[in-house]
């Protein structure tokens, strides 16, 4: 399962970087979306994939049974998802405004600040 996830993450990263290197700002934002998802999956996978063992305390011993899933990684991902959501909402507005102001969606035309 981990190997499959690793391949999926690799493909996600590759796809996101490919999209970010395109000239259209819409594709750029799609690349950013894929990128944040890929990073979240890295946390998810590297913290260990455990299936069918939710981190619940045992009523009698007040201790989690051995081999439960690590809940912290999921808390990290949850935080990261919320942050990514905010940031991506901003970038969508940004490309909309940029398109209005610059009158193009072509990144190659946006080089006024690079001279």
């Amino acid at each position, binding site marked *: 399962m981990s190997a499959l996830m690793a391949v999926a993450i690799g493909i996600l990263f590759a796809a996101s970087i490919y999209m970010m290197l395109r000239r259209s*700002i819409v594709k750029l934002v799609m690349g*950013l979306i894929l*990128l944040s998802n890929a*990073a979240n999956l*890295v946390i998810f996978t*590297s913290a260990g994939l455990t299936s069918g063992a939710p981190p619940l305390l045992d009523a009698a011993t007040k201790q989690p049974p051995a081999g439960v899933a690590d809940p912290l990684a999921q808390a990290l991902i949850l935080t*990261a998802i919320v942050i990514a959501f*905010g*940031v991506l909402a901003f970038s969508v507005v940004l490309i909309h405004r940029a398109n209005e102001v610059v009158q193009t969606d072509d990144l190659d035309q946006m080089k006024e*600040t690079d001279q």
Partner: protein
Amino acid sequence: MNNLVFLPILIPLLAGAITLALWRSSKWQKRVSVFATLLYLTASATLAWQVSQQGYIVLQVGGWQAPFGISLVADYLASIMVVVTGIVAFTAVLYSLVTTPNTHIKFGYFPLLHILLAGVSGAFLTGDLFNLFVWFEVMLLASFGLLTLGGERAQMEGAIKYVTINLFSSALFLSAIGILYGTVGTLNMADLAVKLQDVEQQGLLNAIALMFMVSFSIKAGAFPFFFWLPASYHTPIIAVSAVFAGLLTKVGVYALYRVFGLIFIGDINFTHQILLWMGVFTMLSGVLGAASQFEIRRILSFHIISQIGYMILALAIFTPLAIAGGVFYLFHHIIVKTNLFLISGMTHLLQNTYQLKSMGGLYRERPFLAALFLIPAMSLAGLPPLSGFFAKYLVIEAGIVSQQWLATGVALFVGLLTLYSMIKIWAEAFWKAKPETLSETVKLPLWGVVPIALMAIMTLIIGFAAEPFILLSQATAEQLLNPQSYINAVLGGQP
């Protein structure tokens, strides 16, 4: 008493909320902002004083013991950075009182500024890697807002580059955190420092270390990841540029110091060797970029990069002397660079342009402003007895002592080229005759000049009374190079 650590984060957060509630009244937003930044400065100075008495102040947030909860840690380095942040914030707010257009204030200039401050101080004070990521994002989101306020074409273009590269760096940071957590199962910095000593897969650790290095170098604007910086830093209004120039890249440098001074010190020959070359090329490319520019703000932006190179070089040499130099460089540079940007705003007010070729005659017209420019400019170039001299001196001496001849030679050469750039601004904007096309000058606003004068005085103090500052830097370096004391302070002496 430990709650003091939280104040530099709490005050700007509250100030952000209050100024947000005062959305309609720019007058009250200004008042609250001045008061809040003054309060911030007081709180951070108190914190620094307490830290100088105790060495470390640690707050386990919510009473969750480390390494299970989030620790906020104030040591010498963090508290110095917070105090300097306070200075920059206070002067920037004073400067904003008259120079920020009302259209900006109407769309949340002050709330964003305060949230930015909260993010910056959170990043300085946290003792947890994931928390560092969260504060980075707080800081970034606020900076996105500040960068695009105004919505001009150059701002939009600059912002797209800035946003993209910073999000990429964040994703890399996040992935590195994930892999590190998967490897050692903790993210508390002190706990990491303990546990990484026992990890046997040094190759894997090096790979993770490099991910952190690339991510922080992007944020710090180090070679070869700096291209976004000169493409975006000159686009917003000057007060914003000044705060960015002073603080944001330095948060990246601080993170490098923290991570490569405390956590990834197992394979110094590998990681710090890369940092060394990075520092050398950062210095060179920054200063050469600046030499080719004729727009004040872009010259200054490129000089941020070259000065970042010195700080990274100091970290790479990794001796007590070098780290002391690097720390001295950090706080000297923040003040000087912010000041130079503020001055470029004043010259723009006078001559309505940032292009050096169409400026001139400022020395004859405004000798006082010219003197105020010379102080930070010559300090940046490293002329004695100004603060930049001691910063460069320490770094270069450390380079000679540890026999890094090439790096030291480059550092000296870059110092010379920095002088050239500053002389170029001086000669073009201040010294040469005033172009006839320029109209009559305007009166400079008092609250534009006061912050500049304040920071120039601070530069003079750091320069002329350098000894206590050098002693402070040395104490900081000593503390930074002794991870065991940090570990004991955070984990309470238990392994």
